[in-house]
């Protein structure tokens, strides 16, 4: 379970997040929804231990990320905001490197790599250097290296951003599959229909604050509109004018 409470973070004069609290349960998909610049990535960065909040905490299975970053990170599989790959290494070598950083043995890495290559349809690119990979191929490598250590919690920052239809589908299938495996999946997006389709729970962030939490039905009810997209726009605008 992922638990985030009262996060605040400022960069210089800019308040990136003001008050962010939510939970993401196991065997459920939680969507973090917000406009660009609403504070999604900052919240996730606190969660995966890249930056420290001024107030509040983020806990993975009860472990505070700021207190014990390394234990918390070992429980997380993360697709971060940056999707950089090493152009001179092959797909497998990426998985090997990240597996070793997670303390896996070479046998474990081998078995798990084969599994992920199958899951993500990467047979054709497994031994190719990542130089010149398409956006979709790169995303697959990023996803695979995030999942190499078989984490129980998966955090994906805008996993479908800039992908073609085929890869987007593949990513959605993956998210659904992770859920059936009982994992806690948290992903961020600014695409309403994607979140509506995939998520059990939705957290809407606007202006650095959580403005609504709940199932799609609950959110529609809270905003008093029938359409989820209208609800999202309405709630975001209310936050902006407040």
């Amino acid at each position, binding site marked *: 379970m992922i638990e985030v409470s009262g996060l605040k973070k400022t960069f210089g004069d800019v308040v990136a997040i003001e008050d962010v609290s939510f939970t993401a349960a196991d065997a459920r998909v939680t969507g973090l929804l917000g406009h660009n610049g609403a504070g999604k990535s900052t919240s996730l960065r606190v969660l995966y231990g*890249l*930056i420290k909040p001024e107030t509040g905490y983020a806990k993975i299975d009860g472990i505070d990320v700021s207190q014990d970053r390394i234990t918390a990170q070992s429980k997380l599989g993360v697709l971060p905001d940056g*999707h950089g790959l090493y152009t*001179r*290494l092959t797909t497998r*070598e990426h998985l090997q490197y990240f597996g070793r*950083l997670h303390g896996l043995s070479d046998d474990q890495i081998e078995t798990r790599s084969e599994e992920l290559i199958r899951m993500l349809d990467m047979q054709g690119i497994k031994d190719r250097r990542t130089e010149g990979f398409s956006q979709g191929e790169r995303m697959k490598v990023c996803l695979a290296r995030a999942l190499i250590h078989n984490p129980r919690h998966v955090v994906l920052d805008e996993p479908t951003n800039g992908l073609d239809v085929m890869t987007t589908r593949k990513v959605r299938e993956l998210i659904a599959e992770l859920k059936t495996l009982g994992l806690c999946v948290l992903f961020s997006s600014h695409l309403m229909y994607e979140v509506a389709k995939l998520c059990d729970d939705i957290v809407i962030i606007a202006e650095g604050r959580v403005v609504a939490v709940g199932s799609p039905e609950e959110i529609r009810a809270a905003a008093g509109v029938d359409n989820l997209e209208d609800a999202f726009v309405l709630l975001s605008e209310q936050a902006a004018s407040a």
Partner: protein
Amino acid sequence: MNVVRAVLIKELKDGLRDRRALLSAFLFPLFAPVFIYGLMTLVIKQNTESEDLVLPVIGQDYAPALMRQFEEAGFTLEAFDGSPEAAVRDKTVELVVQVPEDYQETMANFELTRVLVIHDGSRNDTRTIVRKVRNLISNYNNELAALRLIARGVSPKIMQGVRAKSSDVASDEQRAANLLNFIPIYVLMAAFVCGLGLAIDNTAGERERRSLEPLLINPVTRTALIFGKWLAASALAGAGMIITLALCLAAMLALPIDELGLNFTLTAGQVLMLLIAILPVPMFASSLQLLLGLFAKSFKDAQSYVGILIFIPVVPTLVMQFLPIASSLWMYFVPIFGQSLMIKEILGAETIPLLAYPAAFITTFATSLLVCWITGRLLNQERVIQS
């Protein structure tokens, strides 16, 4: 430890596959012997070439005895026509000797006769020949004076007062090593050049291609990441430095240095001592490069910061040129300064205090560790991760 090894293996694999960067990094050591051989051959040639030298003379018929002196010293005389000043200034001739028309007349009257040596004092390459000509004239003068005294029944010994006698305390190896001043510079520079590409790619490059964030979300200490990167860059820098040293020494041994009346020998023991002395230098260089690479805003920024570091090895030699102080123990404690001194002294077959080895090694190595530790701490700062 496993983390350090994983990072080391990955960075080396990644770095060695970057053929272009590797080529440009190792161009430096490969050029070392070519550069040294070329430069030294030039020096040797200038210092030894005296055979069949052509000496342009105006009025050689006026002073046949003096001319014979020149010829005996190996000069081929050549009558010169035209303006000697203009010719020397144009560099068409190195110098011109002008014998005055009234040479015999003044000589007969025991007056002072002036033989003009026209040369360009700003030219380094003609200094040797000009000195030689002047010495010949001066010797001829002494002989002439002695003969005149004998003709009057006076012993030429009467002219002997005080003369300087030089006693050079420098050993032959030391004098040769003086010529080798640039070997420490070159070898130490190699340590700063060969790992540079990897160190920048490792830090500024990691951020630029947006792979730093994915790396930092791994459950490992950031100091371990830095140590892995440091060892990878050090390995490459060390390889480059040792290649440079080997090639420089090979070039020195191939040179006809004995033609300068100098002696350059090299024993296996000396080579071993050299290696021990310079071993921590690539580690030192790489640690500084990683630190600057992380500080830099971009890849280009990093290149210019790290580029400045290359001049560090020049500093000790420059300092010693302008402040020629006797080496004392504290100098070995200063990273790079100590090693620069040791290379020169080992090549010059001088005795180095035994304490110098641990002194230079420990301080340089410890400084590198400290820099790496600071870099690791820096990697915990959000400012560094984000920018």
